[in-house]
Structures are given as C-alpha cells and as structure tokens.
C-alpha cells in the first residue's frame, strides 16, 4: 500500500516540477479562462446588468472549458516526449499512475479556480464569498468529479488520432451531472435569499457522483491502458 501512494506521489511531484519550470498549462488555461469570461459577458450581460444565475453558469462553464484545455495539454506533453510509455512500463500498479495524474489535474484545476472565482465575483458582481466554505466545498467536489472522468479520457485519447476534437465530445456529456450539480449549487448560494439546504443537497450529490466516477475510472484505467 505504501508503494502505491509513493508511486502516486512521485507522479504528482514530477508533473508539478515540469509545470513549475514551464508554467505552460497554468498560463494558457488562465488566459483562456479570462477570454472565455469575456465572451460570456457579451451574451449574458443585458444593459449593464447580469442575467439571473448567469454568474454561476459562467464560473462553471469557464472552468470546464479551461479544464479541457489543460487536460489535453498535460497528456500531449507525455505523448510528445514519449514518456507515457515509460510511465506505463514502471513496475507500479496502473491505478497509482492514474491517482497521481488525477491529483495533478485536481491541483491545477483548483489553481485556475482560485483565480477565476474572485474574477467572476468582481466582474459579474456576484456575492461568491458570502458562504465561502460551502462554495469551496462545491468547487472541490466539482473539480474531483470533473478530473476523475477527464483524466481517464484524456489518458485514453493520448494515443488516439483525433484526440483534440474527441476529448470535448466525450467529456462534456459524461461530466454533465457534475456541471449541473456545480451550477445549481452555486446558483442557490448566489440567490438574493440564499438557499443553504439546497446547496448542501447538491454538494452531497456531487460527492456521490465523485465516488461513482472515481471508482469506475480506477476500475477501467488498467484494462484501457494495456496495449
């Protein structure tokens, strides 16, 4: 069991090290997130006022889009340097590699969220920090679910031909439950009369989705990545 977590931690450490040296994924995802918000602002701001519930939707869609970009790039890097094969050849359980990659993606998503949440709060005048712990819970639970599915499919598609177009096509329908939970939960917190119970219900549902997605992904990673 210790070797499992040591291996996973090593994969995370490697990914973080590569990322801190190049900062490629962080910079591109952040800039993409900001330009995404700009595009939404044109559609969802009417006569200077934001359409109801739009802030929650903008927040989650921006994160989902930026996440797709980051996922594609993280695994492209492994493919370009032919390191995916080396990783898979390592004498550790495949699931440990998955967990390592998954943790790296979650950390990256949280980093992007840490920048996007204040930006949305500022630019769309949304009281996001009124219930900060609950919002943080929703963001973390949402990121876990999104990353669980995303890591599996991005890893699978790394070897595939038209991965750039296929990743969003696969990822968005699969992660719709997570996006719905995140948007509805956040919207419940942003209403004029805050619905704490509703946000809690969605948080619990999100955690259920996380458990299902993570179990399925761990179960499928081994046979899918075997050539």
């Amino acid at each position, binding site marked *: 069991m210790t070797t499992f977590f040591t291996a996973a931690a090593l994969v995370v450490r490697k990914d973080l090290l590569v990322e801190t040296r190049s900062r490629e994924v962080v910079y591109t995802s952040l800039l993409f997130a900001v330009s995404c918000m700009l595009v939404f602002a044109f559609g969802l701001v009417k006569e200077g006022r934001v359409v109801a519930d739009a802030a929650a939707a903008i927040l989650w869609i921006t994160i989902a889009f930026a996440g797709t970009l980051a996922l594609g790039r993280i695994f492209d890097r492994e493919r370009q340097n032919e390191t995916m094969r080396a990783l898979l050849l390592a004498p550790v359980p495949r699931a440990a590699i998955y967990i390592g990659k998954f943790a790296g993606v979650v950390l990256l998503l949280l980093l992007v969220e840490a920048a996007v949440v204040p930006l949305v709060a500022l630019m769309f005048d949304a009281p996001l920090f009124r219930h900060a712990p609950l919002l943080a819970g929703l963001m973390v639970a949402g990121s876990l679910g999104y990353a669980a599915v995303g890591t599996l499919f991005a890893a699978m*598609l790394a070897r*595939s031909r038209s991965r750039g177009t296929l990743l969003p*096509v696969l990822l968005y329908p699969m992660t*719709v*439950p997570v996006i719905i939970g995140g948007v509805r939960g956040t919207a419940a917190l942003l209403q004029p009369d805050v619905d704490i119970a509703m946000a809690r219900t969605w948080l619990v549902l999100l955690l259920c989705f996380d458990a299902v997605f993570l179990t*399925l992904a761990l179960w499928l990673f081994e046979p899918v990545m075997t050539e």
Partner: protein
Amino acid sequence: MTKRLFPVAVLLCIGMFAYAPFLIINAPYESTMGLVQKIFYFHVSTAITMFVSAFVCGIASAIFLFGRRPGADRVAVAAAELTVLFGLIVLASGPLWARKAWGVWWQWDARLTSTLVMWLVFQAYLLLRRFGGPGSEKLSAAVAVFGAALVPFVYWSVNMWRTVHPTTNVVPSLDPSMRGPFLWCLVAFLLLYVLMLSARTALENRRARLDALYLALED
C-alpha cells in the same frame, strides 16, 4: 437452428407490428390527453428498448475489457448503434407528445436532459470508433461502461427531482385495458431489437473473419 429460427422470428415481428395499430386504436382514450396519449405505446416501448440496449452495450464492453473476448466487442458495437437508433425514436416521439401535453417541444427537466445526455454518450462512442484510429475499440468500450452507468441515474432521476415528465410508476399502475396493447408493443419492439442486434452482430462477425482472412493471405 438459429438460421431457421431467424426468418420465423422476422415474420412474427412483422405480424406483431402490423397488428399493433389495431390494438392501439381499440384501446380506451386517456381522460385528459385523448388521442395524443396513443404515442405512449411506441414512446415508452422504444425507451425501454433503448435502456436495455445501453445495458447490453455496457455489459458487453465490460466483458470485452476484462475478459479479453473480441466477440463481446462486436455485440457492443451493434448494441451502441441500436441505442442511438432507438434513442432517436424516443427523442422524436417525446417532443411530438410534449407539444400537445405541455405546450412546448422540449423542457429542460431531469428525465429529458439525462436521456439526451445518455444518447450523446453513445453517439460519442460511435464517433470514437469511427475516427479514433487503431486501438479505439478499448477506448470506446470504456465510454460504453460509463454510458451504461448513467442509465440507472437516468431512470431514477424522475423520482429524485420534481419534473413534468410522468414518473416510473405509470407503467405498473396502467389501466388493464391499456396494459394489453402496451405489452404487445413492448414485446414487438424488444423482438425487433433482438433481431436487429443478432443481424448486426453477424455482419460484424463476418467482417472480422474477412479481415482475418486478408491478413492470412498477406502473410
């Protein structure tokens, strides 16, 4: 045996579908919706067939992934195509009914949304198989397992959230005079499904054998 049974089953299926309209016409009118409610007999039957098909695809894909049986993969392809086909019937007949019953073509409620999501997942499965290049059978098998895992979620979603779509206890509590025609249609669609699945799988088997022969010829 199966070769002789197949034409008999086809004839039976044609007969059942030919007789279905008479049964549906003679079934009583529903008190509030009247004539439109008759869509029910095909809409619900195809929906159940779609769910069955999604499960068949998911289970066959899991067998292919964990048991390494290429035959299971060929069943999975056939089932995925049929899930998309029956899903199309469900998603076409649903709005026709909704327009009359609810006044709108589409409503973003849990049941409709999740059915559309499931349909998109199986579309993605077919896209991946077609454009994914070599080795995409395994990847798409993983997609199918995820898709099948969404099915119970789709089924229970109506009971979990408040929606305009009728709940799952409509069928068990059906009026006895409507139950007969409904079961008739359900059996007809399931029979059609089994026939199409076996024909499509047989085609896929032949294709695999032909590929193997080509490879042997080249060696």
